């Protein structure tokens, strides 16, 4: 993909983010942070692709492997803890 279409996606996504997130009420700001934190763990995908590359120097592959670990903590921990909090907002 060329840089212009990537930049287009980047800028438009920021606008979508602003539109959607300004509607989140202060009550849910903590779950919003932990939930968006989990989403930022999407770096996992980049790490997965690099960690599977046999062409890479073993040391570089190790770095990508460690990145896989950290990003997985981020993703799983983030979604779980968000779920835990949101459940508390649910019960009446």
């Amino acid at each position, binding site marked *: 993909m060329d840089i212009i279409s990537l930049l287009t996606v980047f800028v438009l996504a*920021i606008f979508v983010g602003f539109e959607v997130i300004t509607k989140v009420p202060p*009550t849910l700001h903590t779950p919003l942070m932990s939930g968006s934190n989990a989403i930022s763990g999407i770096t996992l995908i980049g790490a997965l692709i690099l960690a599977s590359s046999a062409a890479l120097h073993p040391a570089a592959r190790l770095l990508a492997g460690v990145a*896989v670990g950290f990003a997985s903590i981020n993703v799983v921990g983030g979604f779980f803890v968000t779920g835990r909090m949101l459940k508390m907002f649910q019960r009446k």
Partner: protein
Amino acid sequence: MLSQAVVNIAYLLAAVLFILDLKWMAHPRTAVRGNHAGMLGMGIAVLATVLGEEFAAGGFSAMPVIIGVVIGAAIGAVSAMRVQMTKMPEMVGIFNGFGGIASVLVAAAAIAAATTAWTHGWAGGTQEKIAIVASALIGSVTFFGSYVAFGKLAEFLAVKWKLYPWQRAVKLGFNVVIIASALAYAFLRGDFDVWKIVIIVSTLVMAWILMAKKDTFPGLNQIKLVSALASLALAILVALNPGEESMFFALVAVAGVLGVGLTFSIGGADMPVVIALLNSYSGLAAAATGFVMNNNVLIISGSLVGASGIILTNIMCKAMNRSLVNVIFAQMGPTADTPDADEVYKSVKSTSADEIAMMLEMAQKVCIIPGYGMAVAQAQHAVRDLAGLLESKFGAEVEYAVHPVAGRMPGHMNVLLAEANVPYEELKEMDESNATMDSVDVAIVVGANDVVNPVARTDPTSPIAGMPIIDVDKARTVIVIKRSLSPGFAGIPNPLFALDNSLMFFNDAKKAFTDIIAAVKEV
């Protein structure tokens, strides 16, 4: 094996699900569905990646990768299940850091991939060069900044008192690990060059700052400035010479000093701003990684998180009437014009649980204003019990007024009260509760100080001048539950405590509410 086109469509689906996740966060009723949408999106993205042709073309065994995912997932799941709600700021703080370090490591691996392990020149384009630099720079600031935020929230960095063994272990262990890594890299890999000196010096500076026993010391602002300029200069150099491995790690190290410097002097009530800002950075780092990998789903998710963090940062700054620059560089504290505490507190009246119970018996409308002290004392359940008792025994109307910066992260108080089963309809935002404050019979301030200080409205020279506050002084009677008259984060006395309609109940928040509940039961 899936073709790249199928993988890309899966990524699009994942991006849509992430947007829906955040969209459904707009209401507590739909937010659970939103979180499930996010999980589903992430599952689809990961599965598509692992089954896709790019992954298969990599050719390396999938086993180590799977082990990495399983270990990470296990750590994440266990910590998410075990963390106490009062510790949520620490949790989010450290998780931001994990996102940041993942971006740094991916950038390092990507630069190695593009130069075939730094030996055969550069194979990537201009876009990748800039993106790798951005990913490393933002990621490193996020990681080291988040570690400091975590350390300050967990009270082992920048404190004078004696540490628990685990705190000392983390504090020293982190320093040992970074110094050992820097030395090992400098002396064991390749030729020694000037960048390795930069790496060692930066690491030592970081370790030195991290050992400090107070928030601020001479030279800290200069370190912020120098490391910011050096990071930018190195960023340009690395973008021009991406094949220079040691220069890349020098950038990571100097950006680390910047991350440590920026967050080290930030404390207490400013923490929500920093946590929100680091949240935003972790997203931007992920987006930069997206540009490195030419991957749309990373770019979209990263920018969503970046936008979210920026919005929250902005809300927090507005709620304190301070700019972001002021939060990062200025020190809060009493000024020459600040009145003397003894003078302000001359007419303070203290009260007892029995007296409070009698007042509450008469009250038709009660408003509770929680602050960080409620979190520290873990008093949220006792607070909720008293509210329930007042509703059932006296038929009173109870609501909660929550200031946007109460606590140590955005929405901190709301989560604690939700944990204690307070229905979210009873949680009022500042403006809403201020509009009806004059009809409140008894306002109970629990562990809050600066956010209810009327000086913000009246004294333009005060450090909190112009900060929007909860106008509890307009309630008929104000009860302040606080352990002592010590100042809040702003370091200034609070004339609210000495008003004619104010009564102080000097006690730990949890003990205070337990005592009041017992007294109310006897009324």
